[in-house]
């Protein structure tokens, strides 16, 4: 009997081990769970940070795609915005992701999951909303086989004061501050004068580039650039400018044809509205036919060469015939280069080379000129050496580091800059070649190792085409923007 009870008691106590084990397991599990929960919070904090940073840089890369594709030199040029993009016209670069549950679409305003461009309505509240025209272009893969960063769309549009909330022409009467918003203009597009934004019409318009990036985890960033085109500003002071060393014994030379009644002439009156090959634009003030920078060059070109036999072939600038600029040359402050300074020119050369559509090592001929060059597509050509053209007409900006020779029906519409010291036109009876725009000649090869100009000579044969006609339209067509400068940058809350 006792024995039996005892056995039963032992059996009853046998479950304690299980209880103890469960208790300890629970304890350990609670500690473990607490740790997991805490590290989970850390992980999600880190993930948030990571995705917000990724979205920021994705949006930035969208901005850069937009800015890059504004340039005519870009193989994926948007071709939207030069010379101007009217307000209300919007260009979107879209970059939808195949795995998006709702395809992203900047104009799908009804569906927030499509990441619509609600920011546009914020910027244009009083006018141009909705946009009068919308163009959508797919994004270009920067690396074949690799998806682009996760930006959803990039918008490019013209801006007014209200869109960027900046009082560009400064009409703010001061406090109280509530008046300020009503002072903002929402009619006129904003331009860029090379340094500042302005409401005054200039050839270059400021644009807003806005990019939205969204990651699959829904973190978003909206960034905006205001950009303005930057072009080479080459000051033109005459139809033909010859920069000589300014020494009496060694001055600029212009050798005109020797035969009577020759046709070669140089006109400084702007041909903008005249016979110039198709371009029209508002005329600019007339310039002298030939420009020089110092008195010795003036005496050598004007007194020693042009007074006979046909001074009437050189007119313009309100200067007595033959027209050679007698007054001291004043260098305009907003230009990229000082054409009177050999050092400034040598600094300018790499800038042109970087901006050039074609860089050729000389000697070269017309066969080497880019085939895509045309009146509607003027190009910048940099020849590092000599160039000779035979019955060829080019368009744009031509910089020849060596000497330049041409013959037959050769001409150039735009700007020709020759820095080797000699331009030679060889005899070609019946030639009708014509230079519309401006020509500049200097010698950077000899004379003080770049610190001073060497002797520069323009040799014109008897049959040498029609000559040089100043044309401000071709001059400005030759100076295309080579970059879009970031004028301002900001982060905007979205949505």
């Amino acid at each position: 009997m006792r024995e039996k009870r005892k056995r039963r008691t032992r059996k009853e106590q046998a479950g304690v081990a299980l209880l103890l084990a469960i208790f300890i397991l629970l304890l350990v599990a609670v500690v473990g769970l607490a740790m997991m929960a805490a590290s989970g919070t850390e992980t999600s904090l880190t993930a948030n940070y990571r995705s917000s940073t990724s979205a920021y840089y994705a949006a930035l890369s969208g901005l850069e795609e937009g800015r890059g594709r504004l340039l005519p030199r870009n193989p994926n040029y948007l071709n939207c915005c030069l010379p101007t993009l009217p307000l209300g016209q919007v260009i979107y670069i879209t970059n939808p992701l195949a795995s998006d549950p709702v395809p992203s679409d900047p104009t799908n305003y009804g569906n927030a999951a499509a990441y619509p461009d609600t920011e546009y309505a914020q910027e244009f509240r009083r006018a141009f909303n909705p946009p009068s025209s919308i163009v959508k272009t797919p994004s270009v893969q920067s690396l074949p086989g690799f998806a682009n960063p996760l930006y959803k769309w990039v918008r490019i549009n013209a801006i007014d004061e209200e869109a960027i909330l900046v009082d560009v022409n400064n009409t703010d009467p001061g406090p109280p501050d509530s008046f300020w918003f009503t002072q903002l203009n929402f009619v006129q597009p904003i331009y860029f004068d090379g340094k500042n934004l302005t409401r005054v019409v200039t050839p270059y318009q400021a644009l807003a580039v806005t990019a939205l990036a969204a990651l699959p985890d829904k973190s978003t960033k909206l960034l905006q650039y205001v950009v303005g085109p930057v072009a080479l500003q080459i000051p033109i002071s005459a139809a033909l400018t010859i920069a000589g060393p300014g020494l009496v014994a060694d001055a600029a030379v212009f050798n005109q044809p020797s035969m009577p009644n020759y046709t070669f002439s140089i006109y400084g009156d702007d041909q903008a509205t005249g016979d110039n090959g198709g371009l029209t634009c508002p005329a600019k003030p007339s310039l002298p036919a030939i420009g020089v920078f110092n008195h010795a060059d003036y005496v050598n070109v004007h007194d020693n060469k042009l007074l006979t036999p046909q001074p009437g072939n050189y007119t313009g600038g309100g200067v007595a015939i033959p027209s050679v600029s007698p007054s001291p040359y004043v260098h305009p402050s907003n230009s990229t280069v000082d054409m009177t300074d050999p050092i400034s020119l040598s600094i300018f050369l790499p800038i042109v080379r970087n901006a050039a559509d074609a860089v050729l090592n000389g000697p070269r001929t017309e066969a080497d000129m880019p085939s895509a060059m045309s009146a509607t597509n003027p190009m910048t050509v940099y020849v590092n050496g000599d160039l000779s053209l035979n019955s060829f007409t080019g368009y744009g900006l031509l910089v020849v580091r060596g000497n330049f020779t041409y013959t037959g029906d050769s001409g150039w519409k735009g700007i020709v800059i020759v820095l080797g010291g000699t331009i030679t036109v060889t005899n070609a009876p019946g030639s009708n070649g014509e230079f519309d725009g401006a020509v500049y000649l200097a010698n950077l090869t000899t004379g003080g190792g770049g610190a001073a100009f060497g002797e520069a000579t323009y040799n014109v044969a008897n049959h040498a085409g029609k000559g040089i006609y100043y044309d401000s339209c071709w001059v400005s067509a030759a100076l295309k923007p080579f970059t879009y400068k970031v004028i301002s940058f900001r982060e905007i809350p979205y949505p």
Partner: protein
Amino acid sequence: MKPRKPIRAGGFSLVELMTALAILLIVSGFAFELLTLSMKKYHSDSQLLNTFQEARFGLDQMVRDINDSGFPPRVSIQPGTTPPFQRYAVSPFAWGPPGTYPNSPCAIGTTCSLTPGSYDMIIETDIDPQNHSGTVEWIRYQLNGTTLYRGVAPKSSNPGADPEAITSGFLVPYVQNVMNNPPAAQLATLQAQYPAMFPSGPVPVFQYFCESTPQPVDCADPIASTDDPTHVVSVVVTLIVQAPTADMTTGRLQLVQLKGEGRRLNPDN
């Protein structure tokens, strides 16, 4: 009747019990020691992580603010006009001493007072571009003792106003236990434990880099061609943050050092 079986089969002797108890004590002693250790470790590590998180949050905000500095730049407004002072950023960074802002920029490292300095910076930017008030803000970061303060004040419309005096009223604690420039005694302790983090005494929070070719140089460097706040292109931010308690297992102070660079994207005026 059969003889009874020995009791032995039904229980434990005292010796057995004592042995079992001793083993249990030793094992559970080890287990609890391990648990305490891991709790301590966990506590210390989670504090370190928190500190890291706080430092990163602070650093990130500073870098973003520096990226945005100088909006809207003076070039957004037509030349030849004098826009109201509070409508645009005169410079990406405002400066002291009083009376010099905005017309005579100081030289970083020499004539600037507190800002821009190693432990103090005032960023000028419009942080709420969609707000129609159109007023630029001053964002100030200041390390005072071991607390980094942040303050946002609307830019004064009075050109003669002193940015330092105006922003000082808006400062609130932002990151605690910042050890870039602690009191001397504390610095000595830290330096002894982390010699690599404090190579030569206090560590500047802000280092300014000015425009130069071919690359930006430290504004305080004599070779810098420009040394005023209007030409700062990037700021390197270094934050050293200490966890509130030392490591419970080793007794070592816990420090986190983070470094970031903010680059100004807005152009010069």
